[in-house]
């Protein structure tokens, strides 16, 4: 069995203890809510997109260290990015989690436009720390909850 050090990397625990971008955003920011029906975790993602760029993102909800740290790192990674780049990042993250790109059409995490899939130049930065989650398959759903919810939020953005 892989060691817990692979899972609970220091940067993950740091984001868990001090989550970034916590809070809510008022409209016109969009809001999406995600649930992990398995464990009851829930997350709300508030996304403010101006001219195709993520102007601000805030997150509320409750969850385990993996889901909350993933959400926190995600919020840092997407803030200030163009929506097209965010979508590429979602696919890159998806790929790191071992989710099959070929299944993309049937999966809620999929981005079904012309975005280049899993472009290797997309930098994950701190998010690389979540790589170890793949060794604990039960926890992949924890790591992807925020990303699924972000994808839903992007779908809510008018003209995105």
């Amino acid at each position, binding site marked *: *069995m892989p060691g817990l050090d692979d899972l609970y990397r220091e940067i993950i625990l740091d984001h868990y203890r001090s989550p970034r971008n916590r809070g809510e955003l008022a409209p016109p920011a969009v809001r999406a809510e995600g649930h992990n029906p398995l464990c009851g975790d829930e997350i709300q993602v508030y996304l403010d997109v101006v001219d195709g760029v993520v102007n601000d993102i805030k997150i509320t909800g409750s969850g*385990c260290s993996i889901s909350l740290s993933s959400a926190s790192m995600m919020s840092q990674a997407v803030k200030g990015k163009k929506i097209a780049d965010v979508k590429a990042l979602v696919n890159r993250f998806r790929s790191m989690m071992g989710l099959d790109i070929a299944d993309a059409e049937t999966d809620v995490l999929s981005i079904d436009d012309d975005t280049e899939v899993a472009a290797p130049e997309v930098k994950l930065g701190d998010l690389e720390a979540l790589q170890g989650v793949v060794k604990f398959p039960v926890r992949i759903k924890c790591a992807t909850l925020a990303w699924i919810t972000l994808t839903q939020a992007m779908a809510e953005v008018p003209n995105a």
Partner: protein
Amino acid sequence: MSFDGALVRKDFPIFERFIDGAPIVYLDSANTSQKPRQVIDAMTSFMENSYAPINRSAYRLAGEATDAFEAARSKVARFINARSADEVVFTKNATESLNLLAYSWGRANLSSGDVVVLTHLEHHANIVPWHMLQAERGIVLRWVPLTADGQLDLTDLTALLADAKVFSFTAMSNVLGTITPVQQLCEAAHAAGAIAIVDGCQYVPHNVTDVQAWGADFLAFSSHKMCGPSGIGVLWGREQLLDAMPPFLGGGNMIADVRLDGFTTAPLPAKFEAGTPAIIETIGLGAAVDYLSNLGMANVREHEMQLGSYAIRTLTERYGNDISIHGPTDIAVRGATLSFAFAGIHPHDLSQVLDQRNVCVRAGHHCAKPLMRLLGVSATARASFYIYNDESDADALVDALASASDIFGF
């Protein structure tokens, strides 16, 4: 009847398995129980020697299989002190039993404005079927609330039950371990003119069950939580009520006659058993009932009271205010199913760390989200003990929790 914990454990082959060189500390029996050799052998032997269709064919082998199947029904009837084996209907599990009641009894007897009373302890299986009926029929749901320590607050029970048609409640909470006063609740239901449905999924595997002493009308439970296989469950009901109910699923076995213009139903219990049932699993359930009966359910309860008390005491002594065990503290009104919060660590993370020591606990909402909301949590960690557990399992849980606090540092 005798109960020797060390001997009981030896009956369960899974405990011969080691993971990463260490034994398994299985504390998830409220979820599903492990299986003793006696059950495994009964199912294997039945498949090897006696397997055939039941209730259909005239040859001897089929007769043997039918006899074995019906013997299991009689064992279950005796186990819960049913008046007759005809009152025992085999289903897929307790969830199906409760759905059968909401669908069949509910649709025949409930219409807009009729009141069904549930409690805040209920599992989704005793909530959602009534929600579905609410959406379809416009029935009204009322809820018995909880006291601060997770027992049913019966202060306003009479008012809640006024004009109610159904009172459906758990005999033991799958989250808090709370054991409810079933007999008193059945009496209160009847005094109000309601039927009493008991969800015995958590209670029956751990306690002496006597549906006649309770004065219950219906009882639902599952085989897989009481050492039997999954895929088979029980609906017990008073014969008069079952007789008056329309059938649930239609098909083979449940009919007396079928013509082009309609059908008539078979007598109980076949009326509610459409199609080929889980034959092998039913044999397994019969063997599980034999196994538990040999141990003695009073002995099982005694064992779990001692073990539950020990676990609560050692967890509290070791961790003080860092651990909070939900539900009643008095073992007389609770089973050895312990949901707890530990040092602000999320249950998923706790479970992950405990798994490193092969300590298997459930982390999640336990299919009781309304109760989770009342507790103000999205999830709990739950350690649940059974006949094959002993104090060393409780000690392993206590020790493993220390490594969680090491990682998450408080």
